[in-house]
């Protein structure tokens, strides 16, 4: 009898202390990042940014990375609906396309979950803010590097897929910045490689043969740079033709080191994820001052992560090289 009593008291004490402790602990908050092609290096960078932002905000912030491994907007929409059931404190979403997620995002907002889009927007939805990359500026950053490398004169070619929105914007920004800062440089031709590295090589070869005055090639997407570098190598004109790539996939990094790609323009996925997390937190914590999106807190509607140049010289620093060569994994 006595012993039983002690056991009961002890058990009660344990239960009470657990409840007591949790009462003192800060309430946990969950923020979900939802992407398409989950596992892609790019989104791992964005999630790394989100995780670091959560660390700054405190131990009570939990994050998770969700979404289909496929590039399938319908699957991503389902994921949003299922994550919304958990009533996370905020969601940050990279939209697989701008239309399909609209109903799912709106349902989440209607349930009081702040939704921030990043990387790819869903402008027709009720999402509170978009954290993205200004592709026009991305192209302009490439143009500045090109202008300096060519000493302000010569002819150049742009690799892109006509009709693809982000590449069109990058090309437009590139041309405009050349015209503004380096009027001595002329865009001689547009090379359509259909976003494929092998096509980039053959099409660039043809373009360089047709017009030997082309001294520079700028690729508006990740695969064009290595393709153009291969074309320049085949024609034996390494050093004579400047190749500027986009993004920092493995092949681009290798060719930056050998110098066959002079520079690459990078956007900042880490910062996109970081900033999206911060926005989601802001939106989940309204202040007394009325916001534009009641009942949510204050967030600007749009912010850009910015673009910058990486050169082979930068990669000489082992710390920097290591950073790009070992992308985060989740």
């Amino acid at each position, binding site marked *: 009898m006595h012993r039983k009593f002690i056991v009961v008291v002890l058990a009660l004490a344990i239960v009470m202390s657990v409840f007591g402790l949790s009462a003192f602990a800060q309430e946990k908050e969950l923020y979900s990042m939802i992407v398409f092609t*989950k*596992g892609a290096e790019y989104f791992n960078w964005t999630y790394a940014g989100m995780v670091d932002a959560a660390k700054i905000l405190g131990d009570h912030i939990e994050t*998770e*990375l*969700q*979404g*289909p*491994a*496929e*590039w*399938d*907007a*319908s*699957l991503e*929409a*389902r*994921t949003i*609906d*299922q*994550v*919304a*059931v*958990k*009533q996370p404190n905020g969601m940050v979403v990279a939209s*697989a*396309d*701008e*239309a*399909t997620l*609209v*109903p799912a995002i709106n349902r989440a907002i209607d349930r009081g979950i702040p939704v921030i889009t990043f990387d790819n927007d869903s402008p*027709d939805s009720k999402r509170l803010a978009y954290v993205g990359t200004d592709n026009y500026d991305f192209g302009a950053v490439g143009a500045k590097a090109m202008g300096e490398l060519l000493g302000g004169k010569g002819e150049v070619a742009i690799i892109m897929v006509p*009709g693809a929105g982000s590449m069109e914007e990058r090309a437009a920004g590139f041309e405009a910045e050349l015209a503004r800062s380096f009027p001595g440089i002329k865009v001689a031709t547009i090379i359509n490689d259909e976003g494929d590295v092998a096509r980039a090589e053959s099409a660039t070869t043809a373009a360089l043969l047709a017009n030997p005055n082309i001294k520079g090639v700028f690729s508006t997407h990740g695969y064009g740079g290595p393709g153009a570098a291969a074309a320049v190598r085949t024609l034996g004109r390494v050093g004579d033709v400047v190749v500027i790539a986009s993004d920092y996939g493995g092949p681009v990094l290798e060719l930056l080191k050998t110098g066959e790609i002079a520079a690459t323009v990078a956007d900042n996925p880490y910062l996109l994820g970081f900033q999206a997390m911060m926005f989601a937190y802001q939106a989940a914590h309204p202040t007394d001052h009325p916001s534009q999106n009641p009942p949510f807190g204050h967030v600007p509607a749009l912010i850009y992560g910015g673009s910058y140049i990486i050169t082979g010289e930068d990669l000489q620093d082992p710390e920097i090289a290591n950073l790009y060569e070992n992308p985060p994994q*989740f």
Partner: protein
Amino acid sequence: MNKVIKAVRGMDKQMGVILFLLVVITIVMALDNPYFLTVHNFTVMAEGFLFEGIMALAMTLVIVSGGIDISVGGVFPLSAILMALMVRSGYNYYLAMLIVLLVAAMIGFINNELRRILKIHPMIVTMAMLLTLRGLNLAITDGRVISRLPLGFIEMANKRLMGLSWPMLAYIVLAMVWFVLSKKQRSFLHVYFVGGNPASAALSGIRTENVYRMVYMLSSMLAAVAGILATMVYNSASSNFGQGIEMRVITAVAIGGASLTRGGIGSIEGTILGSLFLAMIYNAFIMSGVSAYYQDVFTGLMLVIAVVLRTQVFRKE
């Protein structure tokens, strides 16, 4: 209560195992996450697998007939795209649905004719069709999402009947119809006969080719139903819809006890349970926050277990 026990005893053993697993997962998840055992979650869970569920009904017949239909992974997005395009250019919604169903029936017909005339395995025929359709979908849409559908269509699509969404309603009706037909209707029963032993089925006077034609056409048409519903759910359509959906459909059918190697084995109720099981697994991974990378590992393991159960443990002597 006695009735329930009797019903459970009389049930297929494999289905019993799946039912048992469903209960276990429900209990574990309910303890892990307070939101799991809610009406809202179960609705979302079911709605997350309705397209596969609808397609699995017809796929069961194909597999029971001894064949397979991979092409549904191309018919599903094609139907969504055609529906969205027609609605956007002002077609009557119901006429548009009819046209999509006819196109799908035609694709099923072609699948079967190719299989019959060329005498090649349906896996190859329908895989070729899948690739063709995926390419066609890209060509039609130019890789772009079709959106901004008329408000009238969106309003119609968002309507609920007795609190149920269109896909949910469609699934319930189709599942009931399929279940009853598979037990009573002659041409559905013939599918089992033909799948189990085509030669003796032919000898007993069954027109086996009619049976094959029916199952492939139905498979395509239910994929089209799912595609039409997808347009309604997402208010848009894209060539990237339904990536890998054919595999999820076949997995649901296989977990439900149908045999991919021997025709004549499988049931609609098993497939329904298999669909429910996969729906719950996908949901459980999202709810628990366990990396979705393990989802396919888990699903694969479940499939192996289901096959082992059927072929080794519960084998009828």
